[in-house]
């Protein structure tokens, strides 16, 4: 798994490539938390456009960030999920907490 970060206003954008599962969940947690702290951003936008596989361990890494960010009044959104990953997100109930958007532009516009 590879992570690319970019700051857009008050939002940290993380673009994920590869699989998000038990083996990569820990580095996702560590890296995203570090970037959020260092850059002082309030919201998190997770771009899963480069992710081919996501399971409950990967979902835990995302929802764990949601818990921390939500407690500080921030928001989390997911964009770019392919149909298989979208199905995993919907079945799990994650979409009750985290907004799902087609791409980064629509997510950013919606949060304004």
């Amino acid at each position, binding site marked *: 798994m590879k992570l690319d970060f970019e700051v857009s206003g008050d939002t940290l954008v993380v673009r994920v490539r590869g*699989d998000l599962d038990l*083996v990569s969940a820990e580095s996702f947690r560590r890296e995203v938390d570090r970037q959020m702290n260092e850059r002082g951003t309030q919201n998190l936008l997770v771009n899963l456009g480069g992710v081919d596989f996501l*399971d*409950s361990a990967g*979902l*835990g890494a995302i*929802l764990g960030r949601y818990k921390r960010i939500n407690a500080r009044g921030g928001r989390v959104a997911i964009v770019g999920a392919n149909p298989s990953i979208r199905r995993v997100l919907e079945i*799990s109930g994650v979409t009750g*907490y985290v907004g799902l958007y087609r791409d980064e532009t629509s997510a950013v516009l919606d949060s304004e």
Partner: protein
Amino acid sequence: MEAGALNRMVLEFPSRAENVGLARIAVATFAAQCEFTLSDLEEIKVVVSEAVTNSIVHGYGEDPRGMIRIIAQIFPDRLEVTVEDGGRGIEDVEAAVRPKEILPGERLGVGFMFIKAFTDDFSVYSRPGEGTRVTMVRYVKKVAVQSAQCN
């Protein structure tokens, strides 16, 4: 090989997170002998990943000395995948597989939710201190492999 099975695969590996990807790719590659759609194969990857992750995290408490065994078999009408460990087992299987509302956190406890959603049938056998065996079934319309190839 179990009576009626056309093909069989056995995979054994230590309880390490790095092996979750190996397990799901190996089973999905094996399952591709059946006429599953790409979407079916993605769902098979998810259920294997969930069962193996459960063994690593809950069965062995992430202790890499534990071993996990996968037995995958193709029958004329279905794929059967068994994931077994010799870990600490599940005290209350019924409670473990019961649907639950997802709550934000690092560990969601929804592995069996995916197994239930993405299989046609599954069973869990577990005894505390003796390990857990999860068997998952996915039916296929048609199996490409010929029985003669497996004899």
